[in-house]
């Protein structure tokens, strides 16, 4: 994908666009050949309008210096109408929802004349009805003669939207199939190379012992707006408590408040009977909270440090990483080897930088690290986001095993199947408030999706 968009150069092989072999050195070359990419993480400037974002970098000129916004506005309207995108050019991007932003990203590439669109995990941040809208848009684009390369881990979506499916495993094409001829089970088996994992948990292991108790927790932003509003719940040993919600409804702030990374306005936190509200992050971690962060690159890893130094991160007060004020290199290295072995982190050694591992292997390293030192509570924020299906199955397995051994898990995820499959208890968060309790045993992703957007009543 990076090669197709000119961000990385191939070692061998060739790319043909419309039958002509091409070589890309930069993304500009790829754009020149009519290839456009919509990234998983939106690349938009929030404080600019849609129009300004779209023209950024390829501004239409008039008379040398002046910007010709009128022409740009006209062109954006034309594209928007032609493909039914419904984009309004003069709204600031910060006022738009996630689905709208994604349409702006698509329009941005079309504006640059792309005829081939690469979409990288476009549905990761969308709720089900936004996904439906996106698919309608994509079908519209295909009808107009565009080519779309849709990259996703979500098999049912691929089956719904694609005309042809190519399965890639570890950088090799495994199979190319017609979606009419395969089931999502068959497709998943092609991806994993063996039988299909499922997030289903078996018998309940929930005990009566409360591991973490959260009471009336409120977190406010700098301007006094509550982002977590009066939230209360208990997690028992051996229980997985899932929090469902559209991203940006207070999940990240809730997690950071429990970790002590963000001050809370009000509320009490009790971990295994001890009041931890005033504890520092370090003390909470040492007290038995493991943390799989939402963004592993920002919060979970030192990308340009070797794996064994990453083993120490967040556990720098505990054995086997330290002896008193000294780093215990031998201990940390030996334990890193154990994690690599037990959690099947695919790496040539523990001295390579974390950045050289794939996302799935980075995540397995983090899971292994956070499971070390007998945690009482594990906060798992999007534990399988952006990882391959093999690593996903492995991570689910580890969570289940730990749960059976009495670990309490707070699970936050955008993957509704994962939430429904793994959770013993499921709560829905909307605008910082817990708005519904859902029984994961008999709820469908569609019902959950509408509860998350506030559309469904009494699920």
């Amino acid at each position, binding site marked *: 994908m990076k090669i197709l968009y000119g961000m990385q150069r191939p*070692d061998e092989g060739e790319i043909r666009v419309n039958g002509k072999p091409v070589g890309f050195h930069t993304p500009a070359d790829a754009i020149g050949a009519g290839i456009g990419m919509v990234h998983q993480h939106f690349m938009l400037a929030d404080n600019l309008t849609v129009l300004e974002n779209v023209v950024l970098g390829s501004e239409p000129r008039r008379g040398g210096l002046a910007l010709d916004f009128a022409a740009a506005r006209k062109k954006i309207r034309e594209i928007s109408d032609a493909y039914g995108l419904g984009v309004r050019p003069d709204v600031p991007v910060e006022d738009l929802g996630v689905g709208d932003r994604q349409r702006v990203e698509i329009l941005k590439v079309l504006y640059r004349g792309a005829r081939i669109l690469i979409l990288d995990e476009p549905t990761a941040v969308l709720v089900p009805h936004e996904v439906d809208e996106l698919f309608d848009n994509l079908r519209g684009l295909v009808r107009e003669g565009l080519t779309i390369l849709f990259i996703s881990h979500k098999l049912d979506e691929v089956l719904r939207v694609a005309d042809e499916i190519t399965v890639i495993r*570890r*950088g090799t094409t495994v199979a190319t199939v017609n979606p009419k001829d395969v089931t999502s089970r068959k497709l998943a088996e092609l991806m*994993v*190379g*063996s039988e299909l994992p499922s997030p289903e948990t078996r018998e309940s292991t929930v005990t009566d012992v409360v591991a973490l108790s959260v009471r009336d927790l409120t977190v406010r932003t700098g301007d006094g707006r509550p982002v977590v509003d009066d939230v209360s719940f208990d997690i028992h040993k051996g229980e997985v408590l899932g929090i469902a919600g559209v991203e940006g409804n207070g999940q990240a702030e809730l997690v950071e408040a429990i*970790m*002590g*990374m963000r001050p809370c306005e009000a509320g009490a936190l009790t971990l295994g009977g001890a009041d931890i509200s005033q504890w*520092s*992050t*370090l*003390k*909470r*971690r*040492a007290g038995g909270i493991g*943390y799989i*962060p939402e963004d592993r690159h*920002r*919060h*979970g*890893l*030192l*990308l*340009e*440090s070797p794996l064994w*130094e990453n083993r*120490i*991160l*967040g*556990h*720098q*007060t505990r054995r086997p990483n*330290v002896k008193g*004020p*000294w*780093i215990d*290199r031998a201990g940390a290295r030996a334990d890193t080897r154990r994690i690599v072995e037990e959690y*099947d982190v*695919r*790496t*040539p050694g523990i001295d*390579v*930088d974390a950045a*050289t*591992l794939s996302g799935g292997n980075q995540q397995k390293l983090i899971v292994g690290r956070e499971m070390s030192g007998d945690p009482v509570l594990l906060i798992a924020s999007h534990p399988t986001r952006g990882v391959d299906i*093999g690593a996903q199955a*492995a991570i689910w397995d580890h969570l289940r095993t730990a749960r059976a051994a009495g670990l309490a898990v707070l699970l936050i995820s955008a993957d509704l199947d994962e939430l429904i499959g793994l959770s013993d208890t499921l709560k829905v968060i909307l605008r910082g408030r817990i708005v519904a309790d859902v029984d994961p045993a008999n709820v469908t992703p569609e019902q959950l999706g509408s509860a998350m957007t506030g559309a469904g009543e009494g699920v």
Partner: protein
Amino acid sequence: MNGFVDRLLGRVRLGGWLAVAAPVIAVAFAVLITSVVLLIAGSDPVGAFTTLAEYGTQPRSMAMILNTGVMYYISALAVAVGFRMNLFNIGVDGQYRLAAVVAAGLGGAAVVPGVLNIVLVIVVAVVVGALWAAIAGLLRVYRGVSEVISTIMLNAIATGLGSWLVSEHFGVLTGNDLGTRPIPDDAHMPGIPLIAGTPVLVNGFIVVAVLLGIAYWVVLNRTRFGFELRATGKSESAAVASGVSVKKMIVVTMVMSGAVAGLIGMPELLGASYKYSNNFPAGLGFTGIAIALLGRNNPVGMAVGALLWSFLDNSSNQLQLLDISKEIVQIMQGVVVLSVIIAYELVHRYRIVAEQRRVSRELAAPQEAPKAEAAA
């Protein structure tokens, strides 16, 4: 971009022969550029470099190079402590000068005798340097003031404060030179006859400098504190999530950087001039920044950088014998720093590509190995 700054500040390791390749390429490139400049100026580059090399290898010059190098090295260490966690302590210059003024004033007053006076002078210098740097650390933590801005401002204030202290409180006039009262003979740091064949002694502070270099390495690489400092420098967000108190780290690191900065003036004060006057060396803090960049915050690299810098400074006067402006040395120093940065960037890119290739090659090979099956 952030990655580039990380590499610039040496927070990224280069392994094996690559670590040596970059500086060698850089120095060779600097020699080349300087030769071109010399040719354009109508001088003979071979003659110039021969003169520099001949002068630099005489015993007397070697002792002098070591003496200046000691101050440069301590200055580079002070800067590097901050660099390792993304703190740009531009104020090393003001910190060491203010520390030297106060320490010289107290040392000259000779409140305690002999060796105790040496200890007092050093402790006072360390404390003054640390406190002056702490101001910038506290401003950053509690008011969000960039330490780059505040330390530059504090440099200016230190200059004024130092002049006021000398003229109003500590100053005595010796001829035309206004300076602090000289530190008595019994509190002089003895020199070491390290280099044979010259009466010039090597400043006794070289021992302190070597110990500081070792301490710098041990603290950063072998202690929990050093790990937290480096982690904060590499990724502040990951450090916060790992329970590192970044505010505390900022203040502590600034204090440490300032404490080391306080020592910069000590070789001169206790081993050469024994007083603070208008002739006291200035601008060492900025030299330290250049050397920290040159040595990439590595204790050995900075030692080599300090000696190279000191060699160029000391031998620049010799060029005038050949009718070459001694400012050519400054051009050379600048080019060395720039080419080191560029060479490391190139080597780093090469290493990233090589490592990614290696990882994917080693992982692609054992497709049928038992490990792959266990994973599924």
